[in-house]
């Protein structure tokens, strides 16, 4: 259920985008983007660089004038407003802190623009800095802060103006892996506590899954799938979504009864009807290795390359018609290169039929 | 509407410039009223015809362009190693020191420098006094009031412009490229010739174009150090106004000069664009 009932009976989403299109010359940066996001939810725009996700974010923030389409915040059309009059606040990539102002002055900036009384500004700045645990840094200059601290200042600077939409452009890309994971959790908790409708741009599927209520997967200016994280993972809507989220086995073949026959590789049980031209998508984790003669084996091949990825090992199984990637738990007796093995489905429901 | 307001000051200046350069082509169509500082009609092409027919200016034009090209080449030869040193020395002190000397020279003004060279190069100046005292020469060696003296002072004038332009170009050549070249077995000299120099050529062309423009328009230096004996176009024009009192003809000669200088600079700009396309360092500006 997206959206909620307004007292007046009008359903108004926290953020609603419809038919949004932007061309740069002949190149379409975004085409016909549309979705509805309920209040207080966090949406990530996921896609490779150049897919249009940043253009979409900047269009919502008011920095890109769309050629067509509407942007509604809580029922109000903001498409014609300049950035300073939109109820949005952006954490820019690289944070864009004002280098010539202290942390406190940075955070106070938006309130000053709203002509809020000085005494109230001081209190709100203090609260905002406390919320991001930077009270001690108020008088520092941005250049004296670490990357993580700068990011928190940028966040505080946005939250202090109490925007109705919080926008974040690749907020964690400049941080180390450990700090990144810590900040992701921190952002998610803060966002849930404040109940603020939020849109995050990222190219990292892991980040998208950790943070989001909803994920919008984009490629080449188009919205491929708007879904819950689990929906994106378990039931990718298109071939692009499948491969972008790590579904590396995309097999071409034909349905024969309840089976999908992949020439030169094997036969796999079908979870659903597969019209001609369909692909069968299998994550490496949806497969397991068995003895070559095991009746469950769908394909038989030779172990090629083996890569350790942590708790699992990723094996490439060379079949006559191509290779399959299989993730297996690492334990004694794990397959070695050159061994002949069978490949079976670990869980039949994890196979996905994709339209070509 | 708001954009127009931002553009307004620039438009006013453009209008003044257009008016100035436009009026000056028109001045050439008029005639000097003898014995006064004013010009009057009727409009005629006489001055332009006189300029095109009379061969008197041709040697002056050729001299000026030849001299400017020569000075530009000398400046580039003297200046490039200095620019390279400033760009690549590991000592911050030396880098800032040399930059400070260049910027100070540049900011100290052309009158100061022209005058400095006058008192150094004159027949009774520092250089000749030193040489005479040392017994190296019997007669003062004449440097001033000939092209040599003007040339020395002009190279000195051009050097900071050239070097400061090229330093930026060399610094923009990523160090990693030089390191990659060394890593792949190329010696320092060959790395310089095959990587650093080619990639800095666009900046060299820019510096040379700037030097050429400044050398062509040199006026004060030939005036002070040439003593009327070094005849360049700028001084020829000046004489038309302050000696011959013929403003319309001066305007015509100026127009001819302008066309020739623009042609020379267009050639340089074309060369620069060519080099830039060939040796662009890829967004590292």
């Amino acid at each position, binding site marked *: 259920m997206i959206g909620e009932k307004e007292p007046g009976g009008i359903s108004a989403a926290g953020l609603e985008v419809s038919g949004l299109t932007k061309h740069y010359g002949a190149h379409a940066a975004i085409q016909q983007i549309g979705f509805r996001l309920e209040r207080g939810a966090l949406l990530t725009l996921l896609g490779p660089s150049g897919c249009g996700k940043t253009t979409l974010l900047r269009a919502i923030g008011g920095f890109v004038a769309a050629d067509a389409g509407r942007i509604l915040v809580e029922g109000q059309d903001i498409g014609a407003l300049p950035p300073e009059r939109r109820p949005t606040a952006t954490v820019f990539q690289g944070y864009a802190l004002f280098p010539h102002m202290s942390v406190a002055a940075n955070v106070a900036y938006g309130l000053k623009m709203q002509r809020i009384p000085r005494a109230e500004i001081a209190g709100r700045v203090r609260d905002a800095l406390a919320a991001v645990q930077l009270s001690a840094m108020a008088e520092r200059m941005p250049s004296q802060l670490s990357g993580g601290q700068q990011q928190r200042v940028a966040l505080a600077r946005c939250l202090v103006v109490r925007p109705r939409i919080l926008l974040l452009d690749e907020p964690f890309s400049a941080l180390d892996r450990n700090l990144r994971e810590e900040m992701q959790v921190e952002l998610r908790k803060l966002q849930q506590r404040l109940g603020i409708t939020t849109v995050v741009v990222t190219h990292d599927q892991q980040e998208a899954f950790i943070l989001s209520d909803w994920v919008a997967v984009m490629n080449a200016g188009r919205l491929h799938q708007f879904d819950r994280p689990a929906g994106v993972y378990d039931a990718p809507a298109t071939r692009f979504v499948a491969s972008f989220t790590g579904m590396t086995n995309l097999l071409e073949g034909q349905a024969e009864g309840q089976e999908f026959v992949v020439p030169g590789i094997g036969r796999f049980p079908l979870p659903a009807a597969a019209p001609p031209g369909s692909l069968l998508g299998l994550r490496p984790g949806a497969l397991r290795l068995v003895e070559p003669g095991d009746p469950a084996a769908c394909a038989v091949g030779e172990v090629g390359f083996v890569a350790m990825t942590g708790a699992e090992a990723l094996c490439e199984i060379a079949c006559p018609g191509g290779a399959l990637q299989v993730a297996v738990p690492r334990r004694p007796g794990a397959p070695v290169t050159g061994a002949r093995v069978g490949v079976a489905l670990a869980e039949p429901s994890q196979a996905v039929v994709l339209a070509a | 509407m708001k954009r127009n307001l931002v553009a307004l000051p620039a438009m006013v200046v*453009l209008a003044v410039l257009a008016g100035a350069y436009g009026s000056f082509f028109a001045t050439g169509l008029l005639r000097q009223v003898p014995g006064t500082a004013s010009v009057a009609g009727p409009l005629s092409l006489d001055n332009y015809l006189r300029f095109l027919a009379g061969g008197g200016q041709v040697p002056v034009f050729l001299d000026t362009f030849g001299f400017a090209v020569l000075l530009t080449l000398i400046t580039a030869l003297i200046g490039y190693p200095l620019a390279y040193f400033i760009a690549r020395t590991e000592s911050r002190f030396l880098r800032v020191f040399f930059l400070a000397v260049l910027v100070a020279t540049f*900011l100290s*003004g052309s*009158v100061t420098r022209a005058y400095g060279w006058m008192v150094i190069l004159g027949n*009774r100046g520092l250089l000749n006094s030193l040489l005479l005292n040392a017994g190296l020469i019997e007669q003062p060696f004449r440097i001033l009031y000939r092209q040599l003296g003007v040339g020395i002072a002009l190279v000195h004038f051009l050097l900071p412009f050239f070097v400061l332009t090229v330093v930026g170009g060399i610094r923009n050549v990523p160090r990693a490229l030089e390191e990659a070249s060394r890593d792949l077995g190329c010696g320092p000299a060959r790395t310089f010739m095959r990587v650093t120099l080619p990639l800095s050529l666009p900046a060299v062309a820019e510096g040379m174009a700037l030097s050429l423009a400044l050398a062509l328009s040199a006026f004060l230096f030939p005036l002070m150090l040439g003593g009327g004996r070094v005849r360049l176009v700028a001084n020829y024009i000046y004489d038309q106004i302050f000696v011959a009192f013929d403003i319309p003809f001066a305007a015509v000669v100026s127009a001819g000069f302008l066309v020739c200088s*623009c042609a020379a600079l267009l050639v340089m700009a074309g060369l620069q664009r060519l080099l830039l396309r060939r040796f662009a360092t890829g967004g590292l500006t």
Partner: protein
Amino acid sequence: MRRGPLGRALWTLYLALVMGFLLAPVLFVVFYSFNDATMFRLPVGALSLRWYRAFFDSDQFQPALRATLVIAAIVVPATLLVALPTAHLMARGKGQAWLGAALTAPVVVPGVVTGIAFLGLFGMLGVGDAMTRLTIGLSVFCLPFSLRALNASYAGLDRRPEEAARDLGATPLRAYWGVTLPQLKAGVLAGAIFAFVEATDNFSIAVFLADTRTRTLPIAAYEHVRDFDDPTVAAMATVLTLVALVFVLVLEKVIGLEKLIRHG
């Protein structure tokens, strides 16, 4: 740079020669200005401040110095007032490259040509006052120098803080005033210095716009050198060099000379 002993010696020799060449005229002029004698002669005689008194008491140089300072005091702010919006337009607008090229004309066009062009324009408009002619002419001439410094500043400018300001509710003008302009401080300073130096040093344009009563320092200096042979101009040159030195220190302190080059 690692070099062999021969390479090292050659570099040292070259650098010493170039430095000697660059510094010779300025150093000698400073020395000459303290020389008591009218003529230069070896060995050097007594030192005195005689030529400084001559410079500051002169009927020729006094009015010229005053006129030059008045002109600079008008030209520098006028130039910046035009350069700031123009640089903004060039950095933010689309297809404004021609604007920069057109405004840079006075740098590329020989000064004598520009001088005569202004002379013609002011003749037609009937501007008889030399001060007005010099102020307008030099403002237009100095603009490209300030513009160059500001363009360089814009090139190194991160645009996102300005967008952040807009995002946080600042109007375009407030965002410019509170966020963009403070970040351009270095460019404004460099632009002001360049405009000052060009306005006070220009000869080839100013000589056509001045008259016998209103002259700038370079013109007065040229005429003095033409008619007299004494170190008064050396005293003037030393004062100007001192000013230049102050500018270098300010630039190094506020911007850093290395940065100036990177974007210059």
